[in-house]
């Protein structure tokens, strides 16, 4: 990326259109207040181009330039951003729209590979074993998810392997 950007209105509207069509409907409502990024665990963990900054870059017409950006794969889908956003942007949806854009272009950063492999194995991009913790608070140890369900895992694997993702040779 060069040190300066030109504000190209065609690139901006193209970027907004792409993100909106892929599910990031609220992107134009963002007023850049930064509340989302104040609570985002992804940002805290060193993935700066999430929610607020990701939106800003799209609004500056930098969608294509960001195609290799790895931050998006640091999103935990926790939706804290959605909860605190005062403008109803639903930033998490923008992040996911951006991921879809990256996936459609088959552009994965290396940091995304582990999570893709996790997705293939467990049906979760980020997965941690919470059985002990759940027992402690009196919940059934195994949450009803694909992580503990071989049949569901098989189905997810079939889906992934037959999708364009299969062509990447990750699995």
């Amino acid at each position, binding site marked *: 990326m060069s040190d300066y950007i030109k504000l190209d209105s065609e690139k901006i509207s193209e970027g907004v259109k792409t993100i909106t069509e892929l599910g990031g409907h609220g992107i134009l409502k963002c007023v850049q207040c*930064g*509340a989302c990024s*104040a609570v985002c665990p992804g940002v805290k963990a060193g993935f700066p181009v999430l929610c607020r900054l990701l939106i800003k870059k799209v609004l500056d017409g930098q969608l294509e330039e960001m195609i290799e950006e790895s931050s998006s794969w640091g999103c935990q889908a926790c939706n804290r951003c959605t*909860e605190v956003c*005062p403008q109803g942007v639903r930033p998490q949806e923008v992040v996911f729209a951006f991921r879809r854009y990256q996936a459609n272009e088959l552009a994965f950063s290396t940091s995304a590979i582990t999570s893709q492999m996790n997705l293939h194995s467990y049906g979760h991009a980020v997965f941690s074993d919470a059985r002990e913790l759940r027992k402690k608070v009196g919940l059934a140890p195994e949450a009803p998810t694909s992580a503990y369900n071989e049949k569901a895992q098989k189905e997810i694997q079939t889906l992934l392997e037959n999708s364009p993702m299969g062509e990447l040779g990750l699995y």
Partner: protein
Amino acid sequence: MAKVGVYVCHCGTNIAGVIDVEAVRAFAEALPEVVVARKDLFMCSDSGQELVKQDIREGLVDRVVVAACTPRTHEPIFRAAVESAGLNKYLFEMANIRDQDSWVHPDNPEQATEKAMKLLASAVGKASRLKPLEDKYVDVTQAALVIGGGVAGISSALELANMGYTTYLVEKEPSIGGIMAQLDKTFPTNDCSACILTPLMVDVGNHPNIKLMTYSEVEEVEGFIGNFTVKVRHKQSYIDWKKCTGCGDCAEVCVEQTKGRIPDEFNQGLSPRGAAYIHFPQAVPKKAVVDAANCISCKGHKFGQEPKISKKTGKPMIAPCQEACPADAIDRSQQFDPNGTIEEIKVGSIVVATGYQVMDKKWFKELAPDSPNVVTALQLERIISATGPSGGKLVRPSDQQKPKTITFVSCVGSRDENFHTYCSRVCCMYMIKQARLLKEKYPDLNINMHFIDVRAAGKEYDEYYTGARKMGINILKGKVGGLEVLPEDRLRVLAYDMEGAVPIEYESDLVVLATAIELPETAKKLAQATGLQFCGSHFYRELHPKLGPVETSVRGLFLAGCCQGPKDIPDTVSQAKGAAAVAAVPLAQGKVKIDPIISEVHAEKCSGCGICIPLCPYDAITFRMVADRPRAEIDMTACKGCGVCTTACPSAAIILHGYEEDQIYAQIAALTA
């Protein structure tokens, strides 16, 4: 036959850009009643009006129709022109071919032109049947009412009283002063709020023309501009204000008896008050009240009952407040009406200045509202105020220790779809003020301020803000996302530095929330009593956002201060003085005009059936005895000319002047031709 003159306006390209003005003019010229039809680029210009005047003066026309923009703004202009040329101004009719035609049909010029012809023919049909009407006048009561005794109400009341009018000032709390009385110092000059407000409050208390009614509320408003009848409820204070000297002895014993359970609203709940209390030290009037809902009737001494006799001592057991009062102002044995008393007053105009409330912190769950060290900015005003609970010493509520780090959070409930989408306008500035005052007093204090952006638009405001930066106050762009409560009531701030694009986390001892300004729920009650309306932001709606900022849709009712929208003190006072000036207009004139386009009953045709009476939305119709029989009669000062009665009368005894039957039929005929 009437001689109708028709004048078609181009309104620049507003009308002519869509409608074929010449075709419309030619069409008009061919109408049988029309003697002359002209057109002009701007009919409302001097030269346009001159066309009309000349035709009248020359005796060419005796009815005038202007086809142009809208009667809402321009009818008065053309009526005045017609009148100045010597014709009765009600022999004028307007055809709306801009707002209702060219503006709504820009894509269909042909049909728009056709519609303009119909609208014009309809106006001509009506105009040729119009009758001259006369304006009527009624006398006004030369007194004013101001509702709400904050700095807005105080400023309005003083202006009106200085003009010489008797002015009633009704305030629901025991003292006037409003929120300004709760503030420590005020931006942008940092003068002490009490120092500049107290003298005004004292002036109000002493002014020979001001009738101060505190601890009172407006219950009912009836009548119209110039002649309002208002019912004011004086709440029951349970203390004889004629005797009370404001010494506060009752309040002092009571706060002990009630063991600090009653939060003091003036100190924003940071300290207790008694059930018997004085609003605040500089109160005007400085009188005590007993808040009966919180009174525990010490020693069983209930209101309206003689004290019990002690079995031990044989003496009466008198409540401590009564015993403490050196002025004999408390006599609990009296029969009190808990509802207080109602007084009826008559005024010619009313200024509403009921102010605002700040949002409670409880709504913001992500901002640790249960922590004692999270306070609203108004609470901080009390903490740093010399009359506040800590005598002006900066302490954090959890342990009364001086904080080392203090955090300011902007836009809490403002600029937020979940609460209020508007900007509260004053919080950026008052937070900067609070930070500056604290930094001056405690230079080692670490102050972090988090803004979406800083709004400092006002005379000398930006300089005040940049001054804060120079003082070493940390100003950060980025909204605080959350607060986490740590052990021992410490707080972790989750923030973001927009410029550096990095998250920020740190521990803070005291966090101040700039919660939004809004109208309280009780604002609805006053709206119902007065006919006030609300705007989209749920403040009282002014007549016009630019040209009628203090007027309302109810004639004779005006707005001042934050009840119309968030503002700082300079703007509040400017608006309040403006409101006083316009409220004085009907009083100064001594009479108000009654529009003659209202309904009238022909007593000889009225059968006395009474159908019209309950239908009138303004209660303007009553029965009057005419030759021993009841006949409907319409109060011309109450009638608004809606015409409901006219259409309902089975005897066709009611006419609506300016909208008579033959006039309306002529319009319909033209529109359906």
